[in-house]
């Protein structure tokens, strides 16, 4: 598939708009002319292999590092002046960073005071991330999952319009992961634009409705998740009970206009999942017994691997 499925950047309701954003560290180009647009609301996944420039892009958007060239806008404000939008943005960049000797509550208090936020908000976010009972424990005694929850609580303190989280489910147990995913959905439904970076593609697929995919600092895709997956080829796999029937079934599918591949008793047809009943009927009409009939839908993992390997080939 094409790797240039990029949405136009002319929206006026963008939470984040990026145009030609580039960052060099010495002679290394970490981010190369990124252009994408994230509309307000919804959950957007920000994915790419390690070292692809995800955190660098986050940092530029948050005003932590300056771009070498290009520009971007957060909530309509240029990133050259983060003070105009940072109070409406919550962020967790890379791992949570808190004062180890302070309690969870005191860590949030330090952030709340800096943001001139009422202390009642601390109790609210502790409740949201289910840390109220452990708020008086020192941060250094927290488990990885609890540290992650506290980092998310810190990002939620300002009741942000844009929430940017780097690997937010890192260290969480399965129940915690489901809770946090549900939290993202609730926030998105309430109008918050949630941007989640993760290397867990199944997690992204389950939680996100939009996607920005980058590799080596280049944009691979930006748009709706289903748009990406629909463009990927899915297959239908049939396995005949008698391997001797496989060539005959392959011939019949060819006659039906498809291009099957055959491997022993296994026949694989490039087709949408809804072609499965048709293949079943062809086998039934021919008196061929199937041991297995399975549609294989494109998933984010295979799509990601396809896109990144295409990119690597093109780069060579």
């Amino acid at each position, binding site marked *: 598939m094409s790797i240039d499925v990029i949405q136009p950047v002319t929206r006026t309701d963008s939470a984040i708009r990026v145009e030609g954003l580039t960052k060099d560290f010495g002679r290394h180009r970490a981010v190369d002319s990124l252009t994408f647009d994230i509309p307000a609301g919804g959950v957007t996944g920000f994915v790419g292999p390690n070292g692809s420039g995800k955190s660098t892009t986050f940092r530029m958007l948050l005003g932590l590092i300056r771009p070498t060239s290009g520009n971007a806008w957060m909530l309509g404000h240029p990133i050259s002046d983060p003070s105009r939008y940072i109070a409406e943005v919550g962020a967790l960049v890379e791992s*949570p960073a808190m004062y180890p000797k302070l309690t969870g509550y005191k860590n949030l208090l330090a952030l709340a005071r800096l943001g001139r936020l009422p202390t009642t908000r601390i109790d609210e976010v502790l409740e949201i991330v289910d840390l109220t009972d452990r708020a008086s424990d020192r941060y250094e005694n927290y488990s990885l999952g609890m540290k992650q929850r506290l980092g998310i609580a810190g*990002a939620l303190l300002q009741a942000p319009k844009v929430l940017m989280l780097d690997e937010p489910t890192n260290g969480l147990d399965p129940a915690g992961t489901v809770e946090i995913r549900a939290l993202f959905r609730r926030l998105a439904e309430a109008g918050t634009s949630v941007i989640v970076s993760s290397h867990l593609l199944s997690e992204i697929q389950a939680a996100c409705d939009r996607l920005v995919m980058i590799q080596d600092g280049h944009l691979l895709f930006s748009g709706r998740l289903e748009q990406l997956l629909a463009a990927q080829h899915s297959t239908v796999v049939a396995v005949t009970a008698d391997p001797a029937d496989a060539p005959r079934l392959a011939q019949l599918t060819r006659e039906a206009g498809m291009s099957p591949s055959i491997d022993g008793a296994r026949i694989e047809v490039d087709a949408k999942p809804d072609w499965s009943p048709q293949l079943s009927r062809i086998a039934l009409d021919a008196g061929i017994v199937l041991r297995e009939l399975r549609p294989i839908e494109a998933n984010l993992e295979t799509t990601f691997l396809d896109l990144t390997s295409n990119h690597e080939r093109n780069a060579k």
Partner: protein
Amino acid sequence: MIASFRSELVKLLRLTTIFGYAAAASGFTIMLTVVSILNADNPSGHGPGNRDGVSLETLAEPGGYLAGFESASSFLGIVALALFASSIAAEFSTGTIRALLTIDSRRRSLLAGKVVGLAFALMAVVTFAALVGATIAFVIAGPQGVETSAWATVDGLSEGLSIWANSVIATIVWGLFGALIAMISRSAALSISAGVAYFLIGEQFILHSLWPSTADWLPAGVLDTLAVGGTDTLSYTGAIALAGLYAVVAYVASSAVFERRDVTD
């Protein structure tokens, strides 16, 4: 800046944070107080501006009870440098600086609040050391034959406050140098060792091997002079002016480095 200051206080008001620095400053002050009183038996000894010793005559002056504290000025300066440097460098090494900047991105006001917070913490440390030094002096001076009648007077209190204030100002300037080095290096260990190496060795090397004429101008000398209220070669006013200049330079340079630095930690 006020928000940043209040935020910094949450971190600094942990008693154990301040206690370590207060214990170091007080320990050294106690040692110098005891040594100065026990060794002050030579009427021809030198004054506190000269580190060779403190005479009985000097100890009998209204501010004599803080002579040991006054002699500890260089060490207190190193404590200040370590406090500022470790606090600021730790923000980078632990990554907390990025958490702070994603709440308030105005770097100058963030730094200003931190510096003011650290200055308050330092003032508490120096005050504690002064009180401990004075207490020890009052306890051991009598049995050692030191004349203390001028100590517990209005003049004594006034002189003591003056010594304390000079020490606070001098240590804050030391701290600002620590902040600058930390901002550049982003490493507590490197900042403290570089700062101590310059103030204890580097400046002595410059004075004795390169430009002896800079004795009254270089930072460590100026701050020592300020802490003891002036010397024959550099007046108190001159020391205050130079210390102020160094403070402004160190703070503006720290602020400029922070403003331009990419936060990649």
